């Protein structure tokens, strides 16, 4: 390798004992310029990449605030496609439908996922089975949601003859949530300090007691973060629901079977193609509400819960 400094420079210094300023690395100016250039380029790239998100947030906040009204939040979409400019129609059915489906799916996914995570973190000792499970959970998280939807359609809608229903949609979404819940629980439990568990063990607690009374309590913020973020993914899903939930203009609380149910993402996907102002406004409103939900969940999960977990950790 070539030395970085000019050899003549150092020789001069030794011979004459004259001070000629600090030794400059070779090509110093060019390298400095390159450094600045690349930094500038990277910052431009970052701004370009982030600009669309800001534009999305701004555009839909602007449009959403223009079209939002109480009546649009409490009426159903029935009649929304009518050409009457004063047509009635709101999103109550879609809002409640989304909450219903996502609520049902977390009732399935959360218990399964949390206790699956308990096994990985507390019982498995990182054995072979647990690494296989982890691997498959990661693979499951990577399966495109349209495939989950189509398999849900094949199995639930056709083979089990549930038809389009909230239950079918919830089962498919719970498959989507499950791997996140498992892995988030595992990671949260593994961050619980061993000292606490060992202390309880020394006092004669059983493993079951330690997990239920101590570990899960201390890991709660992390587990909730995982659950909340997987909820925010489920709220925004469209593809799996198209094949399992259908859509309904009316509010219904029937989970099963052959009863279609409305949800917000469907309104975004289809209503803008209906050539009436009201329908297009509703698709803006649905987008706005979805972004609002995702934003709130993200802020709660990332800021609120992080603080909670810091509090818990400081009390140890």
């Amino acid at each position, binding site marked *: 390798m070539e030395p970085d400094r000019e050899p003549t420079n150092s020789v001069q210094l030794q011979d004459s004992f004259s001070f000629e300023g600090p030794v400059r690395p070779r090509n110093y100016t060019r390298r400095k310029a390159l450094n600045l250039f690349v930094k500038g380029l990277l910052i431009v790239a970052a701004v370009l990449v982030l600009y669309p998100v800001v534009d999305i*947030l701004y555009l839909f906040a602007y449009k959403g605030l223009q079209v939002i009204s109480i009546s649009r939040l409490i009426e159903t979409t029935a009649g929304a496609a009518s050409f009457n400019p004063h047509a009635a129609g709101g999103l109550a059915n879609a809002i409640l439908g989304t909450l219903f489906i996502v609520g049902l799916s977390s009732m399935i996914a959360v218990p*399964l996922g949390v206790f699956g995570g308990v096994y990985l973190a507390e*019982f498995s000792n990182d054995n072979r089975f647990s690494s296989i499970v982890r*691997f498959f959970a990661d693979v499951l998280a990577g*399966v495109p949601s349209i495939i989950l939807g189509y398999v849900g359609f094949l199995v639930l809608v056709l083979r089990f003859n549930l038809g389009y229903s909230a239950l079918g949609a919830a089962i498919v979404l719970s498959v989507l949530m499950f791997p996140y819940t498992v892995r988030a629980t595992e*990671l949260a439990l593994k961050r619980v300090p061993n000292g606490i568990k060992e202390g309880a063990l020394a006092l004669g607690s059983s493993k079951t007691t330690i997990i239920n009374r101590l570990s899960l309590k201390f890991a709660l913020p992390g587990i909730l973060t995982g659950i909340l*973020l997987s909820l925010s993914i489920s709220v925004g899903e469209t593809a799996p629901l198209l094949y399992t939930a259908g859509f309904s203009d009316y509010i219904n609380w029937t989970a099963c079977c052959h009863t279609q149910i409305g949800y917000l993402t469907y309104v975004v996907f289809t209503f803008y193609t209906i050539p009436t102002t009201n329908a297009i406004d509703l698709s803006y409103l649905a987008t706005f509400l979805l972004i609002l939900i*995702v934003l709130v969940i993200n802020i709660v999960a990332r800021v609120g819960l992080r603080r909670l977990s810091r509090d818990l950790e400081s009390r140890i």
Partner: protein
Amino acid sequence: MARHLQDTIYKYVTMCLSGVALALIFIIIGVLIDSSYPALVVYGSKFFTSITWNAELTGSICYTSGIAHMCGATFGVLVYLTGTLLSSGIALLIGAPAAVGLAIVLAEIAPRRLASPISFVMELMAGIPSVIYGFWGILVLVPYLKSTLEVGLSHSLSSVPIFSGAVFSAGLLASGLILALMITPIIASISRDAMRQTPEGLKEAGRALGLTDWEITYKVVLPYARTSIIGSIALGLGRALGETMAVALVCGGASNFLPKTFFYPINTMAAFIVFQLDAAFTDPSGMSISVLAEMALLLMAITMIVNVVARLLVRRGFVSRPENLIQV
């Protein structure tokens, strides 16, 4: 003794629950193979080589080896496979460098006080539903491409075949750009975390040798995080291949022809399955359901291979917080 029994029961019950992940993958693959069997028997390898998709929904029903299908129907996946691969390829070409750039800005350039709000925006980017990206694509991106970028490209690069010819409103370039946006937070967040794990001592050694900031990034940080960065790009590819709603809205819904330029309308396997929802019900022979299952199986195989490679590359170690998991 009773306690010991309780612990044992707890252990095995939770073990079964964690095994659900395994069971689900096998169920998904099993169901898809089972459902696509009739299509495999009737159409065989023609499925992969034909560009025509014609379900002949109004024709009469014929039988091949006892399996019902519409007479004269052809099902070729080639248009959709090409669309999936090309749009994801463009997404990687544009998205990966931009995302790694963003990661470098977050890990190396931006001061911490600026980096955390930017990180938050990036995490939000990962959280915005796919269908909303598509809606934005229709409202903003596609009109912009049609009026400005594509016209500009086709004027200035008209001698290059892939940039010449008519400009369509939605198509390959729009799909690629939207996908590039969607995979950016995945690649950027994993790469950022990997870069931040570079030992401080290595960077300080570089600084002591007189390296500039960029040289430290290029010669120390990037090589250190290389495997994870490549893995994150593979994860992004996996996401792009299976992305459905955003592409469904901006792809142009092509069928029966292959794209010749960057501006052509395309269609992807995932988007096409959404578009075929009706055909699944209106095909009196039920063959459409089977053919779509075969398409889903092909998509599943491709994404699974990409994801498995990605998982092996992204080092496990640094996914240590539950909130980081979600982008992975």
